[in-house]
């Protein structure tokens, strides 16, 4: 399953990230490492960006990009 399968309020653990190098680099730098917990906070309507909480900060990521983040099932 991927990040977008979480409903707002649910938490998941990152399994890996399948984005292209640039995007995955940025996500990794922001601390989205494998094994890290993320919480889905909010989803903008019509597959707009999602807001997640990871470590101590809130991040917004586009829907398509969030789908490249796979979670442990």
């Amino acid at each position: 399953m991927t990040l977008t399968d979480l409903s707002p309020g649910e938490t998941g653990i990152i399994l890996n990230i399948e984005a292209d190098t640039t995007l995955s680099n940025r996500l990794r730098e922001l601390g989205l490492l494998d094994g890290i917990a993320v919480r889905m906070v909010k989803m903008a309507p019509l597959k707009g960006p999602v807001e997640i909480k990871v470590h101590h900060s809130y991040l917004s990521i586009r829907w398509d990009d969030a789908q490249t983040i796979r979670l442990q099932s």
Partner: protein
Amino acid sequence: MKHHFASSSNTGSRDGEHWVAIVGNPNCGKTAIFNLLTGLNQKVSNYPGITVEKKEGFARTDDGDFRLLDLPGTYSLSAESFDEEIVSEQIDQWAKGMAPPSVIISVVDATNLGRNLYLTSQLQDLNIPIVIALNMVDQLEDHTQIDADKLASKMGVAAVIPLSAKLNEGLDNLKNAVVNARKGKQSPLDSPPWMDSEMVSDLKSTEQNGYVSARFGLAQSMRNKIQSGTMERDQEAILRYRWIDDILSQVTHRGAETPLASSRSEQWDKILTHQWGGPLIFVGILYFIFQSIFTWATVPMDMIQLGMDNFSTFVVNNMPEGMLRDILVEGIIGGVGAIVIFLPQILILSFFLTLLEDTGYMARVAFMLDKGMTKMGLHGKSVLPLMSGYACAIPGIMSTRTIDSWKERLVTILILPLMSCSARLPVYTLLIGAFIPSVTVGGYFNLQGLTLVLMYFLGTAVALILAKVFSKWVGEKSSSSFIMELPPYRAPIPKSVLRHVFIRGKLFLVNAGKVIMAISIVLWFLASFPKVDNPNSDVNPIQHSYAGQIGHAMEPVIRPLGFDWKIGIGLLTSFAAREVMVSTMATIYNVEDAGEEAVNLREAMQTDVHPETGAPTYTPLVALALMVFYVFAAQCMATFAIVRQETNSWKWPMFMVVYMTALAYFGAMAVYQGGKLLGFS
């Protein structure tokens, strides 16, 4: 994508000089600290990506002054957008020994240490003494403790100074630490502590790329290997975070709070960014702002008007009659005074816009609108630049630097001048006040305020539609993402908000003082000479003047829009700045009147009649056409200059002039001719 961005200018750093750079993540408080250390007033706001260019200042200490450099925020040395590129290029130069600073202040947000220290650890590779400014300690949870000294020794930096830029606490310690860091020699480590010896020897074999520090060379060749795919992609992040997390577990003590706990901001967001309610609230806020610009400002504006009238009466009564008095009363007080009364509106507008940013709300708006914006060929991060465009296009265009895709950035720049900037406000307000009746429609909407909102809406709506059109054939598609941190809502610091509003107001007045005064004087001459030889002839002296002649020459072109020669002159002088339109009309009427007292511009326009037919020169329809003209017209030289700078070519500013002029001309014509067809006069 890199080659699309304008190259960043090199700041004039002098070799061997003692100077200090501030580096850190977006929104961690770098500029707030920079301002406190230098006494300058650079913009501080609760939105990641406010600073988009290098800024310099001087910090004073007991041990002498040093030059201080503030930079845009970045999460790492791998840049995605132009503002980040400014930082990474700058650091690359330091790494190659080009005028490096003697100390780096690495600002970190204490509430999110791990992520912030990532960049610090990259900076450490440079082997330049680092002082960590542990900012925002006032925001730490009660139970969280960070052992600053232990953190400094574990990381191997010169010092860690806890501070709060908001409360102005700890800044003296920071200064001292910077001075000491420069004196004390840091023992250079050849290999980064987060790499094991095996990796080091692995990477040593690759070339060193001309970097001064062996350690930076190692890290860089690792990044190169990651880029070329010969090394696991997340290697650098894993290694650095492993090192940082290990240190943090030894130096921080957290209470019961968990990293994913729901914050107070999240509760606010349940309402403010609600799926459907959120966008409605935003539209409501915009309506409220534009409406209140009109309604709230009336009282202070009337007061300034009264003061101006009294002042000109005073001058008339106390100065000997003559040309000097005429210039002063008709030219300067008439022209500049006509503009100065709009100061309250400018202040109200910038007050609200500052509040929206400073609370952290603007970042949410970007989040809510990203989807819609991408549909129009724009980007979630276009929202802040477009909103700043309501104040002035120039800072708006600069702040598009945070948009990571060139195409979307270019489209944002191209449509941004269609957002009605505050220089149009005097024009709108004058015309609305004079020609739109102050009646209530639909129960509680004031027609005057509504007309103003309509002008803002017209510019914005056409901007969005054109964005869609332009994005079809402008620039090639480039990858784009919207990774943005949503900062916590913060109560704005009153001093900082007021300071910002004050700066905007000052800018407006200085402009009125300089540009408008100069133009008013020149215009006074043009409108007063040549004098009619025979004062008894029925030639109207102002029609006969140079200004009158120029205006009349323009009339055939602007007649179809309903404009007369006076407006024609106003359109010309508007090229210096849009608000000059208003001062131009004022000067012309003052010269024409040549009476003892300053003319009330609004009344003068209302009562102006055609010399032959006796029909009113200006009607609500003409006023509407003129406002529409100003919504679209390209009349700001400074905007073109900045577009040229940001796009690195004359092509785009020229394109802008052409499309905006066409829109203005045909838009105004459509209003005037269409209105006449419908039976309005």
